[in-house]
């Protein structure tokens, strides 16, 4: 059983460009959350999707947007990239009734903005 898979694993962009990151949740999970982790910091919550809608949002500008598909997979889009957007982007999946032990993170997509 595959866990949470994310793609791409690494990518390099330049300022002003746009990026799309993808996440497939663990089998049986319907909820996907995205986190941004800057170097040396803990993960920061960006937003969460279930039933194909954004349900919660952290303190991130609307340059950060997302989508969830009928198969529960999700995309994170970041427009007008800034140098400060360089980070590890983590996807976490769960189900609505899951306890914390059933929250699974992927290995992340490392974005470098030049």
């Amino acid at each position: 059983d595959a866990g949470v898979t994310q793609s791409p694993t690494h990518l390099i962009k330049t300022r002003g460009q746009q990026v799309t990151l993808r996440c497939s949740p663990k089998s049986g999970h319907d909820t996907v959350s995205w986190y941004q982790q800057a170097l040396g910091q803990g993960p920061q919550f960006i937003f969460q999707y279930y039933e194909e809608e954004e349900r919660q949002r952290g303190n991130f500008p609307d340059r950060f947007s997302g989508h969830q598909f009928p198969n529960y997979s999700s995309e994170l889009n970041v427009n007008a990239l800034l140098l400060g957007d360089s980070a590890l982007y983590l996807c976490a999946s769960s189900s609505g009734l899951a306890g914390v032990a059933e929250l699974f993170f992927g290995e992340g997509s490392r974005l470098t903005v030049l």
Partner: protein
Amino acid sequence: LAKTTQPISMDSYEGQEVNITCSHNNIATNDYITWYQQFPSQGPRFIIQGYKTKVTNEVASLFIPADRKSSTLSLPRVSLSDTAVYYCLVGDKAPGRRALTFGSGTRLQVQP
């Protein structure tokens, strides 16, 4: 959400027991204490969760005093592979749809 405070870093040697303490003075009655482990370039992984007294699993033990204003994660006989960042989180037991709030964590370095 209750704020947590942990040491920034700790050093240990293989075979020793490591205790990482987390302060959470404003913990609410319904809050649980949860610890995650994160290796470089990987996502965090659940280690253990507790509400009061002591919880033990195959990986670690969690000690929580009666006032619940702090907790201690205990890793018995650490190995080099335990080198990681450890995060203490406080919140609902079942955050299947709750945003987690991570601090900066404790960076544990285990040396031979």
